């Protein structure tokens, strides 16, 4: 995949020959090598690949949680490499909503207070924070559960609260790391539908790491990675085909994959 110069383009995410090297003692682990990609605003994309392929590393770089060893990461018009640690934290608070595999709610807080956590970093007063958290909970269909603690919510509901938390500060980018990894099939479908809705109806750009072949039905575009390399051309086609086969016939049963895009999908799948 080729990308233009950062200055000339205006996608939400632009990576230019990004590498990430980890050192463990004398060992060097090349988690990511010379990856370049672009994601336009409002797209719902997935990073897929086997374990150790560099998906989560790529996600961390895109969300400003980690820094590349070399290359440039541009998100929402900002080159992340140039930001200090504190500036990056501020940038994440403003531009990124995060969803994790294991929900990671604060167990001593109610659903509403969990959702309102990112708003502590804003200038909003207490009542405004509560109001916005309740709106976010309504968006994910949990308006009647805002006083509930984590322990009395189901796994699917917890992930919905986590999605509301990612959504509440109205970020440009929502980043999801295996959001269906800890859910059963029904709840996984529900979460993927919700993410699709956020992208289609609210114009959110969503980047998701997943192993779940079901995700193919919901995303606009899939980036395949293997051994730290972003696959392109025939390699990417082969990986995509294998995934579609798994989704269509092997793992989910005949007819699991729709033959055409659902009605809410505004953009064709890539």
């Amino acid at each position, binding site marked *: 995949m080729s990308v233009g110069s950062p200055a000339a383009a205006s996608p939400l995410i632009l990576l230019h020959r990004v590498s990430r090297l980890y050192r463990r003692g004398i060992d060097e682990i090349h988690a990511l090598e010379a990856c370049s990609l672009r994601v336009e605003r409002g797209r719902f994309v997935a990073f897929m690949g086997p374990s150790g392929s560099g998906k*989560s590393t790529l996600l*961390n770089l895109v*969300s400003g*949680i*980690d820094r590349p060893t070399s290359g440039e990461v541009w998100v929402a018009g900002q080159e992340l490499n140039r930001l200090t*640690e*504190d500036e990056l*934290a*501020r940038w*994440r*608070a*403003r531009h*990124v*909503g*995060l969803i*994790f*595999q*294991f929900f*990671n709610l*604060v*167990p*001593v*807080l109610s659903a509403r*207070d969990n959702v*309102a*956590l*990112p708003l*502590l*970093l804003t200038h909003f007063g*207490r009542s405004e*924070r509560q109001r916005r958290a309740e709106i976010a909970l309504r968006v994910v269909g949990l308006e009647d559960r805002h006083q509930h603690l984590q322990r009395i919510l189901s796994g699917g509901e917890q992930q919905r609260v986590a999605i509301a*938390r990612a959504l509440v500060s109205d970020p440009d980018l929502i980043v999801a*790391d295996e959001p269906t990894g800890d859910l059963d099939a029904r709840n996984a479908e529900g979460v993927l539908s919700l993410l699709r809705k956020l992208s289609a109806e609210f114009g959110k750009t969503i980047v998701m790491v997943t192993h779940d072949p079901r995700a193919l039905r919901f995303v606009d575009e899939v980036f395949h990675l293997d051994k730290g390399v972003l696959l392109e051309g025939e390699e990417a086609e082969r990986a995509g085909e294998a995934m579609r086969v798994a989704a269509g016939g092997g793992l989910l049963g005949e007819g699991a994959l729709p033959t055409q895009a659902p009605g809410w999908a505004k953009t064709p799948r890539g």
Partner: protein
Amino acid sequence: MGYAGFVYANLLRNPLRSALTGCAVALAVLLVCLLLTMPAGLDALLTRVASDTRVGVINKSGLVFWMPYSLMRKIRALDDVADAVGMVWFGGAFEEQGKVTFPSFAVEVEHIPGTYPDYAVAPEALAAFARYRDGAIVGRQTMRKYRWKVGDRVTLRSNIWNVNLDLRIVGEIPRDGSPIVWINRDYLDEAIKAQGQAGLGIVMIVWVRVASPDRVNSVMLRVDELTRNTDYETTSQTEKTFFSNFLGSLQGFLQILLMVTALVSLCIVFIAANTASMAVRERSGEIGVLRAIGFRRRMIFALLLGETVVLSWAAGSVGVGLAWLATKSLAQMGGSIAALGPLGGFIVTPRVIFQGLLLSLAIGVFAGFAPAYGAARRPVADTLREVF
């Protein structure tokens, strides 16, 4: 929910652990506060019992050495001396007790009123003391301890003079903390002579009342001048200095107690730090998520440190409050724990309250600093990678 609410919610995450840590801090602060009150209590005791116009004179070689009785006449003859009384240590043990449990002195009865006007002993008691050779005036603390009352007869056995004296209690020294027993010097003198010995002829302590506070130094110098180059050179001290020196060993004891308490506090710091570390370790995933969603390092540090400081401060305040309550209760019960002697007068002053609160703050800061700093400085990607 704001930052304070978040800190509060986290403190309630494991209520039992928070409560136990809080109890440890409260107990340490209570202990420190009570011990810090001891010097103030001791000072208050000295101020209460010591007059600024009374001077104690003893043999320069020490309290157990004597001075000739003839010195009394010379001292009383000095200018600015209002009165003076010579005392001899009787060392009387209450026969039912078998050991010395209160200080008892043979005194010159006629010079007690002039030397101890501030003791406010009732005139009828002083008159009876002068009238009856076997009379005794007893401090209120000893009266209460043995449930004696005026008119009772008691026998004291001296552990110095090898005599038993039958005594008639004729009055009380109306001071709550006073254990002293005064007996008539002439009565002891007779008892000794009755055993074929030469009689007293000595004094061991002379108490001089100076006419005016500004003449005290002058009188002390002139008293010591009287005995210069004799076999019984004296040293004079104000009553407060005298008692302070007498209780000097207690000051050293107090220092040791304070050192032990400081070590106990240090132990509490380590315990609280360990608890904070466990709490942080258990929540490393959450902390990683907070960092990821935009909480800066200093915020994470402040939130985690805030938890230990709030807990420690609250628990320390309880400890200070308990110390203050203990003081109040003690005041209602008579102002002192007799079993602790001169150290039994706890007085929680504003300074002690401030020191207690400062200590609880310090415990919170020292206990929370390392875990909070460690959690805040870890790269967020490392935390997330390790946890998820």
